[in-house]
């Protein structure tokens, strides 16, 4: 399509029915109460001139361009700040208004560079547009007076410039930073003529700016402009697609000039993000065209041989022949594969289909194993399906928000901005985290309770919260009686004294009174919602904790309406989708067990193949079986298990033991060092399919460019299956989605046509809910009644000892993404060039460690070297690091411990010691 310019109605929409009728320039219009005159005019096709107004921000009323006349009112009020009233008659054009607007524009233009023809925003500048709109023909003041034309350009940010000479001080950037992003990094410095936008008195790169791009998007001139636009020119066409970073799944307009991608602009109609973005999705797409990408298939007989580039036919035939050869020697179950949460639903679906139907076994797992598999187990046990309960918009109706083991401002920044907006409006916040994450105290936000628990004690804390709810009579009995089962047994369990806040205080480190107050707030504060992340799941009791949170939500009646719920913040863009698509070894698409003869029969009929009724191997089981010898070949789609999985020594031993490792990826990653076949994958800019985000929203991923490898990933998989003797033919990915819909009840109504028509849908999408289901469990749980499950606290076997006295916990930061394969190949490295170890000053002092020292981090399974950063975000005894860089290899030290139900690794608790790197080691 040509360049898509979304309409800007000037001020935000107001909720509620359209009840206020008025006339604008003689045209009747009816709008909700509280709507501005400007928006009402725009609703009937009349654009009132404006500069400081945009519909993503509340009205400000500073530019004085949007003046109107209203019958019966004196003067010329600003239409952006004037709410409509019933019967109002508005005139937007008159000689008087024309004169006033021209006067305003004269003042602006008298202090603006007149370089429109060479300006990077030429053709996309609201100041330029408004000059034409108001009919400006002269600037009577001349251009020689005091001005800002010599203001310097701040080029410090890697992605955008700030040219202060072009600034009109409309404050849109300042307000976007506050209202939309919630960071408040920008301000207007000075007064009167000296007023100017400032990043807190320093340059952008040194400021609190998080480079979300909201200011750039809000800027009506070329003051804040993407470097790519300055270098490449204004784009000329748009493709609407979906971001491939975190589980928020933001919609973007990919804007191109010819075949070249110039910029990614968040899409206002995107259901997940509604026009907002973060530094990764907005700017960090350069990896897709990075020279490190491998575009040609490669093979090698052994991992010590050099790679041989080959054509696709050779690579596919070689892969198929070696897989079949291994099966002929070691049995049908000796091979398997891993699907990727970074690829589309369609690409995941064909991999699991290839494994089940062509390989003939259920040895398929997904990288969700190491992040949210406990979510799948826990929510299925309690609610009946493996998904979060709410849409993202729901948080705007929450009165109490409990964030457990998640760091949304870094991990899910666009959703965090929604959450922060609600918190600024007055919702209460409870943070449960060993680390003092930014949300605990940030501009205009302060958590009412920060339960700073010891790592590994989540279940003890959630049980204590539930204990207070139960024993203080705060249970929502009508909800429980009408909607739930097994409550009495659970109540008897949770009421036991050992679950009281006082009993677990010493263990958890959280003062009992703080727990009691938090529980009372959660139960009585109105709509209470739980949002959680990997700090819940990546524990030995990850699944238990998910069930514990579900118990708490049910006991307090916080399920089944807006503003409440239990909500996993998914790590990767398509974690939800990869799980939905049948990537787990025990489940076919739609979370149906492989042992179900009826379900299996449906798939067998459609696929024309006999399917196994027994579960296959999970990822950690594959590693164990590889070392033991019964598992001989692994197909890895878009996951760097040699860097991301725990206890890397064991993973490397397993990979080295395999006869065949096939890697399908963008880059020769760490896992490719063990590979015999490399099948080049496609970036999200080349993909054609769908992603499903953390709110179950199925979004289209549209190709911005043709596959640089010459082949779509689903085609590669289908051709390997064919070469193995199993027919798998699709003409295009819409046929794959049609097959998914035919086999999966929750996707029954999904098709590319519907997605193109509606923009997106949230599953379940079927005859009962043809346009999807934003909020689940409204009239009943998926399993019928919500089930209370007893959740006894069982401490992890990973304990701090004399030898390893500290506990390491891990996480990620805003600018980097997981193992960094993508973000390390962008300018985002400017913010995070290496992983560091955060250590409490007391622990550092005990060890003679100063800020910036190189230290050795040792656990019982391995050791690595990092630079120490002294920080009091963690309690004494806890250290923290990220895992974005292979050189530090944080997973060298993480252990084999895992969640009891799902084998999700216990990344969050590792007993370690930290010491200064000795001169001998340094040498």
């Amino acid at each position, binding site marked *: 399509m040509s360049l898509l310019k979304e309409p800007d109605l000037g001020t935000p929409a107001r909720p509620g029915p359209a009840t206020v009728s008025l006339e604008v320039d003689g045209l009747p219009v009816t709008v909700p109460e509280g709507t501005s005159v400007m928006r009402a005019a725009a609703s009937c096709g009349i654009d009132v001139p404006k500069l400081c107004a945009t519909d993503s921000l509340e009205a400000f009323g500073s530019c004085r361009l949007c003046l109107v006349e209203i019958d019966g009112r004196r003067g010329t009020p600003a239409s952006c700040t004037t709410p409509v009233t019933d019967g109002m008659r508005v005139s937007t054009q008159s000689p008087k208004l024309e004169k006033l607007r021209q006067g305003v524009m004269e003042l602006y233009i008298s202090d603006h560079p007149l370089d429109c023809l060479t300006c990077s925003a030429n053709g996309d500048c609201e100041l330029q547009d408004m000059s034409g709109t108001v009919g400006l023909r002269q600037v009577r003041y001349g251009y020689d007076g005091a001005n800002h034309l010599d203001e310097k350009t701040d080029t410090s940010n890697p992605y955008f410039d700030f040219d202060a000479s072009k600034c009109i001080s409309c404050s849109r950037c300042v307000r976007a930073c506050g209202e939309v992003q919630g960071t408040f990094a920008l301000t207007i410095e000075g007064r009167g003529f000296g007023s100017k936008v400032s990043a807190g008195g320093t340059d952008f790169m040194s400021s609190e700016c998080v480079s979300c791009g909201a200011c750039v998007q809000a800027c009506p001139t070329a003051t804040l402009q993407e470097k790519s636009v300055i270098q490449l020119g204004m784009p000329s066409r748009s493709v609407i697609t979906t971001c491939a970073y975190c589980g928020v799944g933001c919609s973007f307009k990919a804007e191109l000039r010819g075949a070249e991608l110039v910029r990614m602009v968040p899409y206002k109609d995107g259901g997940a993000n509604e026009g907002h973005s973060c530094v990764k999705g907005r700017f960090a797409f350069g990896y897709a065209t990075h020279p490190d990408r491998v575009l040609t298939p490669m093979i090698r007989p052994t991992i010590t041989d050099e790679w041989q580039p080959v054509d696709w036919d050779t690579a596919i035939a070689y892969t198929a022949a070696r897989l079949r050869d291994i099966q002929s020697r070691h049995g049908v179950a000796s091979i398997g594969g891993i699907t990727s949460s970074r690829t589309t639903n369609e690409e995941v679906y064909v991999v699991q289909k290839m494994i089940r139907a062509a390989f003939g076994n259920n040895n398929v797992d997904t990288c969700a194993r190491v992040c949210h598999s406990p979510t799948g187990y826990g929510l299925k046990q309690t609610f009946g399906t493996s998904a979060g309960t709410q849409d993202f918009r729901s948080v705007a109706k929450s009165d109490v928000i409990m964030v457990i083991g998640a760091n949304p401002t870094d991990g899910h920044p666009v959703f965090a901005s929604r959450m922060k907006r609600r918190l600024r409006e007055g919702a209460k916040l409870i943070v449960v985290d060993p680390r003092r994450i930014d949300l605990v105290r940030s501009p205009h936000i302060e958590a009412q309770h920060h339960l700073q628990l010891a790592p590994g004690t989540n279940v003890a804390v959630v049980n204590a919260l539930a204990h207070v709810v139960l024993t203080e009579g705060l249970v929502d009995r009508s909800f429980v009686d009408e909607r739930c089962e097994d409550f009495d047994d659970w109540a008897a369990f949770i009421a036991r004294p050992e679950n009281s806040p006082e009993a677990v205080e010493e263990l958890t480190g959280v003062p009992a009174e703080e727990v009691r107050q938090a529980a009372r707030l959660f139960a009585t504060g109105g709509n209470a919602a739980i949002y959680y992340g990997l700090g819940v799941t990546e524990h030995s009791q990850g699944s*238990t904790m998910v069930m514990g949170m579900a118990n708490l939500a049910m006991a307090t009646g916080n399920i089944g309406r807006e503003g409440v719920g239990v909500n996993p913040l998914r790590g990767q863009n398509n974690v939800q989708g990869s799980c939905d698509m049948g990537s787990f070894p025990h489940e076919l698409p739609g979370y149906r067990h492989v042992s179900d003869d009826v379900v299996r029969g449906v798939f067998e009929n459609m696929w024309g193949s006999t399917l196994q009724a027994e579960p296959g191997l999970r990822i950690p089981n594959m590693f164990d079986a590889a070392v033991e010898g019964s598992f001989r070949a692994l197909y890895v789609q878009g996951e760097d298990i040699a860097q991301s999985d725990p206890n890397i020594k064991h993973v490397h031993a397993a990979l080295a033991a395999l006869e065949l490792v096939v890697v399908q990826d963008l880059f020769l990653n760490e896992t490719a060092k063990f590979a015999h076949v490399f099948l080049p994958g496609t970036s999200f800019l080349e993909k054609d399919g769908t992603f499903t985000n953390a709110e179950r929203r199925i979004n289209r991923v549209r190709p911005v460019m043709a596959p640089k490898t010459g082949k779509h990933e689903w085609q590669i998989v289908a051709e390997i299956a064919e070469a193995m003797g199993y027919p798998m033919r699709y003409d295009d990915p819409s046929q794959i989605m049609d097959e998914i819909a035919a086999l999966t009840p929750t996707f029954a109504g999904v098709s590319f046509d519907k997605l193109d028509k509606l923009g997106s849908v949230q599953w379940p999408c079927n005859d009962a809910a043809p346009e999807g289901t934003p909020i689940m469990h409204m009239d009943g749980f998926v399993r019928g009644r919500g089930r209370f499950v007893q959740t006894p606290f069982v401490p992890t076997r990973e304990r701090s000892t004399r030898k390893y006295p500290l506990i390491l916990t891990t996480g990620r930061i805003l600018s980097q993404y997981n193992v960094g394969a993508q973000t390390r190949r962008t300018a985002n490295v400017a913010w995070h060039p290496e992983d560091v170890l955060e250590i409490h000053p007391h622990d550092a002092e005990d060890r003679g460690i100063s800020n910036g020292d190189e230290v050795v981090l040792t656990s019982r399974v391995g050791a690595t070297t990092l630079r120490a950063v002294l920080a009091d975000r963690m309690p004494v005894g806890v250290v923290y690091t990220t895992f974005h860089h292979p050189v530090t290899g944080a997973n060298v030290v993480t252990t*084999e411990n895992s969640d009891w139900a*799902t084998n999700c690794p216990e990344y969050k608790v590792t007993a370690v010691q930290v010491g200064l790197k000795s001169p001998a080691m340094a040498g």
Partner: protein
Amino acid sequence: MSPQVRMINDIAAQFRHQAPDAAAAAIAEHIRAFWDPRMRAELARRVEAEPEALDPLALAAGRLLTTM
């Protein structure tokens, strides 16, 4: 300790609040639903070869699995 023994002992620890028979049945059901047949076979071998390595509930579940 073999992975199978470590994992079933971890599972058993989660069901200790239940009556022994119910706990053993629940553990066995869990393993039946989620473990690959070769893992169950290895567990069966361990149940016979090194029962002392197994938590009593895990041992009971392991024996139950051989009869399922």
